[in-house]
């Protein structure tokens, strides 16, 4: 029979190399069950203060790493593991290996394992977080663990500046590599408001995803993330604009920052429309406007003055309303 104290339960799962044993369990031999149970309970009650005294003689990691230990209580890796407000050494040792030599060596840094780079991510992070599902791939993804980009490039367990354990705020972090995209958000006049107010790069992109479709997230119903917020464009409509039904939002819109109103890919709406609605050669989708659309008159220079329901309409085949 083996009894574990509650705080040991959270330490299940794979361990880093060199991780020490969990604290000694109280053991008992078998015998007559009823009497033994009472005896065992009595012994447990007696042993608690003894064990507590013994534990007090073993230095805690938090004795030296005070700030990190305090902060770790609210760290996702410290969930439910604190005992009387103290993170047990075994929790630290899961990633840093056996700390006995480090403690006995007076804090000798060479005697403790500090995860770093691709190897560090493999030995620590990915022993638990090697999840591979439809959204995420730690092996086939663009950001799969490599010397250039690994878990610890973006995440910091002890010095996180943003959730989820990111080394910087998301916009600054992604700018490390995706500087043109971040500059587009930061500089252009028509852009989603990132960094302040809730939207982040990961609102639309799955950073651990596969490269198809620019690592875009999907709604719970499997749609593009755009309609997760812009629900009024989701439809379905009786008269659906072909560019939305056959293409997608990016047929007409630039989702990052744009120099054009409505984050369109062209500066004027007429130019955007007429480029498709000019079937000159080949078999392409999009009709030619009738001849009375005199583009030299201001009345016809903005298609959406009349065709207001450009995303789709339930009433009007010409998308007038």
């Amino acid at each position, binding site marked *: 029979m083996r009894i574990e104290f509650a705080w040991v339960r959270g330490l299940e799962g794979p361990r880093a190399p060199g991780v020490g044993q969990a604290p000694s369990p109280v053991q008992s031999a078998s015998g007559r069950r009823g009497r033994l149970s009472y005896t065992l309970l009595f012994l447990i009650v007696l042993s608690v203060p003894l064990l507590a005294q013994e534990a007090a003689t073993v230095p805690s990691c938090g004795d030296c790493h005070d700030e990190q230990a305090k902060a770790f209580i609210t760290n996702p890796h410290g969930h439910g593991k604190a005992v009387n407000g103290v993170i047990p050494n075994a929790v630290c040792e899961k990633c840093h290996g056996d700390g006995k030599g480090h403690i006995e060596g007076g804090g000798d840094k060479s005697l403790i394992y500090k995860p770093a780079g691709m190897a560090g991510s493999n030995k620590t992070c990915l022993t638990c977080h090697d999840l591979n*599902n439809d959204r995420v791939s730690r092996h086939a993804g663009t950001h799969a663990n*490599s*010397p250039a980009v690994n878990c610890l490039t973006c995440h910091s367990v002890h010095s996180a500046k943003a959730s989820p354990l990111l080394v910087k705020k998301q916009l600054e972090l992604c700018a490390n590599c995706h500087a043109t995209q971040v500059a587009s958000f930061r500089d252009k006049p028509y852009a989603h408001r990132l960094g302040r107010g809730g939207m982040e790069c990961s609102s639309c992109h799955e950073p651990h995803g596969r490269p*198809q479709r620019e690592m875009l997230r999907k709604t719970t119903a499997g749609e593009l993330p755009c309609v997760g917020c812009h629900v009024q464009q989701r439809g379905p409509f009786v008269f659906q604009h072909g560019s939305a039904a056959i293409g997608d939002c990016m047929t007409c819109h630039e989702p990052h920052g744009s120099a054009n109103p409505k984050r369109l890919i062209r500066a004027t709406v007429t130019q955007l429309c007429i480029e498709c609605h000019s079937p000159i050669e080949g*078999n392409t989708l999009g009709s030619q406007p009738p001849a009375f659309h005199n583009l030299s008159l201001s009345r016809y220079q903005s298609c959406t003055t009349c065709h207001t329901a450009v995303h789709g309409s339930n009433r009007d085949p010409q998308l007038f309303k």
Partner: protein
Amino acid sequence: MTIRRIFALLLFTAATAGQAQVAPWDFEAGYRWLNLKGSPGMYRTQVNEREGFLIRSFNLATTGPNMDRLVVHVSDFGTSPAGSLRLEACKQDLYRFTLGYRSADQYSIFFGQHYYNRARRTLDADLELFPESRIAPYVGYSFNRFAGPGETTYHFGQDEFLLQQKQKDIDQEVRVGASFKYDWVYGSFTQGWRRAHSTIDSSLFPGAGNGNNNDPILGQPVNATSITRHDTEKTKTPFTNLYVTLQPLSRGRVIANYVHLSADSDGNESEAAYGSFASFAISRFFTGATETATSHAKNTTWRSGVRGEYTIAEGVDAFAGYQKDHRDLNGSALIDTLYLQSITFGGVDQRDFRDILASENSIEREETTTSAGVSVRNLGNLAVRAEFRQAKVEADVAPDLSEIVVPGNQEGSFERRINTLDTNAQYATHGWLLGAAWRSDSANQPIFRTDYKDRDRYRLRAQWSQFKWAKITSVYERTTMSNDTSFESRVRNYTTDAAIMPTEGITLHASVSSFKSDSTISYRRPQTFVVTTSVHSENGHTREGGIGFALPHSIYFDANIARLHNDGTYPFKLNRYNGRMTFPLKSHYGLAVEYNKDRYVESSSLDYDATRWGLFLRIQ
């Protein structure tokens, strides 16, 4: 959720935190003043930071009764165009709860006479029970409200009239499901139900009865004395998704997915218009019209696929997949229009004239994607990745009655195959990070005229960082597209960011970026049938620089200047100046002062110069 409710929630969580063992938290709120010169419409379209009270931030991370972790992040509630609240609470082995609330005030004055000033409020809440167990059930709820006034134009009776609008869209979603993990099988199942309700009320804008066209139609003046429209739409969307990963071997795994949604939409519309109008469709003048429309639309979409991944050796993975997406859109509408007191263009045959339009539409789209690739990440400091994908898109568009009015090219069957080669390489050594990516797409034919037939995308990246005191990143991206319909497009982006920390507490940063976009395509002028060229050009340059330093006594200062010049087809300039200083008053109290200025120059009517000052109290 109003700002008062947010404020009450923050007080409650801060009070709760006070009972907890560890409660680091900070709070910043204050007032922002705005001095705006120029176009308020353009300013609100682009920036929309208004004057008033603002909760800049609230952050809390603590534990509590029945909570191993309680985290709250609040950002920019009040007179900010976007605010958010995120709350996470969990107890190991028992539950995990997340709540996200976002507000976004959306303002737009584009295009022409169109304008809206609407607010979006979204809420997402998810509760997962026994998250560590083999089967972890969960339930979730989402709410999305988009409402507010606007103005639009309405084409009716051979003229366009300005209408004022009130719109309210409410979208709610309930989902239940479970994630499961049993030995080498894990995944999740979700069944959800979404319900949307939209209402739009429109009426003639006061004084807009003459319409945009002052000229008579065939000698008859066209004007409106009254136009009212009422639209409602209800949509029900049940959806199902199932994701399963099988990992019988430590090296290999098979991942399967299935997603199905079926959206049913029912619409009703009523309209009444009075005045003097003309219609070429019925070749008559008329003094008014009433219209009722009922509609039904259905979207059935499913997506299914399987992919396999195999780890050949440590850091070497091969992968392949097959995915199919199917979308089926069907719509029908019955529109009953009664033209009142109509007479022929010749002035005879006065009567009410009824026109009934019954329309059936369908669009079917299927996309099949197969892919295979390899990722090698153990070549010393080098990592390379290559993947080949083939996508086949088939689309069938059924003709609708609009074909009768505007014949040609709105229906047909289309097929497009795209072969994609996607490669990238990254090399890291001694503070250097070098990357290169090339993606080449080759399609057999376009569906839309601006679809590429050949597309190449290049990305080069170099980064150098030396400890914490210096970092330089430079990225160059180029995309070229072309097809057989005379379409040519080039987009180039270049950005270099540099940051140095000459001494502890001082940071200098600078950024230079440019974006260039050029595209040409031929088009036919509707009025003359002459084929000409559409030219689009963007040529933007940004210079940005700033400084941040920490003074003694915990005083921090940040400032930056950014200047954007776009010299393309429609040139503009945008200059931005930002400064922020924080300093403590007592050990737990401090002040923050902010200065922001945006100056936009395009044309005299749309230019603006907006200066904001903010004073915020900080508590931590």
